[in-house]
């Protein structure tokens, strides 16, 4: 794999295949460019403890200088829903400052992103979609990284 991402991803993968925090698991990384991870959310009645959510990571050759593209996937087999959260659109796009140009640091990695998203879900108190979800989902044609989300509210 070209670019600087190769070696870095190899190292991350080696580490992830060893040990991961509870509730986070690697599903696939056959293509080094695209990984899938499963998450469960502990201690939050909004999310049943046995329900898994699937994250898809997409890495550019410029990773980790550039943030990965991370979205939730909607699957039927195995069943994976898009978790209900005021910063997660029903098409799986996540509004999280960590993942945009301003908030991303090349020091972050797949594991730390998973942990951030997991804790964002764990601390959520509102079982709802972002305002304007339907409209956004219908009209959005941009990649997540090219969207300027209006707000990033760290309290939600």
């Amino acid at each position, binding site marked *: 794999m070209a670019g600087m991402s190769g070696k870095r991803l190899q190292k991350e993968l080696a580490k992830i295949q060893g040990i991961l925090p509870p509730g986070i698991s690697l599903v696939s990384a056959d293509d080094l460019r695209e990984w899938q991870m499963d998450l469960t959310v502990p201690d939050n009645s909004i999310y049943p403890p046995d329900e898994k959510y699937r994250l898809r990571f997409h890495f550019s050759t410029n990773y980790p*200088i*550039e943030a990965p593209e991370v979205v939730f996937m909607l699957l039927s087999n195995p069943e994976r829903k898009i978790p209900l959260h005021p910063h997660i659109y029903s098409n799986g796009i996540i509004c999280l400052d960590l993942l945009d*140009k301003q908030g991303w640091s090349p020091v972050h990695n797949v594991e730390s992103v998973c942990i951030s998203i997991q804790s964002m879900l764990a601390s959520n108190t509102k079982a709802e979609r972002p305002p304007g979800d339907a409209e956004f989902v219908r009209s959005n044609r941009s990649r997540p990284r090219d969207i300027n989300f209006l707000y990033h509210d760290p309290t939600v």
Partner: protein
Amino acid sequence: MPPTRKRKLDQTASTIHATSPPKRHQAEEFKEVEAALPATPQTLTSDKGMDSDDDFNSVASSMDLGEEMSSSVDFGAGDSDGDVEEYEDDNTGFEATAKDLANKRKAFETDFKVYSPQDIQNQQDGQVAEVANLLEQPPEATAILLRYGRWNKERLIEQYMDNQEELLEKAGLGQDIRRNPPRIETVIGFACDICCEDGQDLESFAMTCGHRFCTDCYRQYLTQKIKDEGEAARIKCPGDRCNKVIDAKSLDLLVPSDLTDRYHVLLMRTYVDDRESLKWCPAPNCVYAVECGVKKRDLLKVVPTVHCECKHAFCFGCTLADHQPCPCALVKKWLKKCADDSETANWISANTKECPKCHSTIEKNGGCNHMTCRKCKNEFCWMCMGLWSEHGTSWYNCSRFEEKSGHDARDAQAKSRQSLERYLHYYNRYANHEQSAKLDKDIFHKTEKKMTLLQSTSGMSWIEVQFLEGASQALQQCRETLKWTYAFAYYLARNNQTEIFEDNQRDLEMAVENLSEMFEKPTDQLAGLKVEMLDKTAYCQKRKVVVLDDTARKLKEGEWDLLLLTPC
């Protein structure tokens, strides 16, 4: 432009602003401001009101600076009430006293100054040097501070004096930039958190925050920020949530020189972008910037046309090409309206009607009078606009013209047609001048060629045929003005001033057509028509000044009833 003096903070102006309602009620704000405005001031410069300029705020709030700091980007004229002398030698004076302006200028003229990239750089350097000296900070750090503070020197110095540490921290400087000049090192046991490389001779760099990365990664990171994201003034340390901002010296150390050049270009851009009083000339490839004291909130009272060094005349308010006498807000509405309507408006007026119930446009595409609105399913009669249900079975021969529902609907229809007719009236004239300006230009170019020919046969010198070029340019400009008078007129409610306006408009129109006709004369006659042409050119320009002066003065004094709230 002669050197001008700084103008004192206008007390009245700031009080007015403080009491104005939020911007969304533009029409009311306009009236209120006008009512309280003294007769003389030309431009409201240098006041420290809150300017809810969106792009300003979004950045400013993320910097914790609050609104006050995000506005007032004047060259130190901010708090200078009663203390004008202090800023006398600021090398920036574009403001003159209100009295000066009233005496010297026409109402439609605005003060401005054009700067070359070098001027901008010098200005920036000058401010950095001055503040660096005052704060006893190195220039690199001072530049970061000033960029953080959006170049509001006074406010910055004040904050620095208040709490030096806090300001440095917030600006992403931390302390000690002086004691630890940036350098590339090899550190034993270092492993780069970005690329995961390690090794004894791996070169690395860290700012004073201590976040150390290999120089390769640092370079790629900076390249990404500068090249792809166009950032410069506020590039942060790659470390997680580290606020430390990279300074020019560290950058020079880490990236190749082509990138450094780009970085400085971007820095210059932010310097201009950061200040409400500076704007880049929008002409393609033009490198000049223009300074003008007209603020966003003044734009319902003035149309600030500025003239760049490159000859491009543009509006400082919205950076579109000069659109006097029409205020920015109306230009925006007008252009939007035209974009939405122009192609279809004519056709619509001839072939369609509006549904009497939901007002969506209905096209009649067959002979039957029984219409069903696609949108609201209302059934009505095309002929009388009445409810279809009232027609019974006699649809083929509409005889229900007196039915009440039909009567009301026809009324509403007539009203809506009327507004369309009105729009078309102004639009056709607007479009006509736009089109004619192009035709005039074509004719001129043809004439010019013939004149070159004529020159050689008639023995007229180059300078003697220049009157043609002058006439052509005047024609273009006057048509441009005329064009915008029609957009302006569309939003003008009738009052006792509109008649004068229409007279002036007509006079200019006639002057323009007379001059335009001259270009259709056979080329061999043109030389003999020189005097007449010069006269007509001068007359056109005079009429243009009359129109512009009258509209600008009354705009300033709130004598026009503008239909600002009409839907587009």
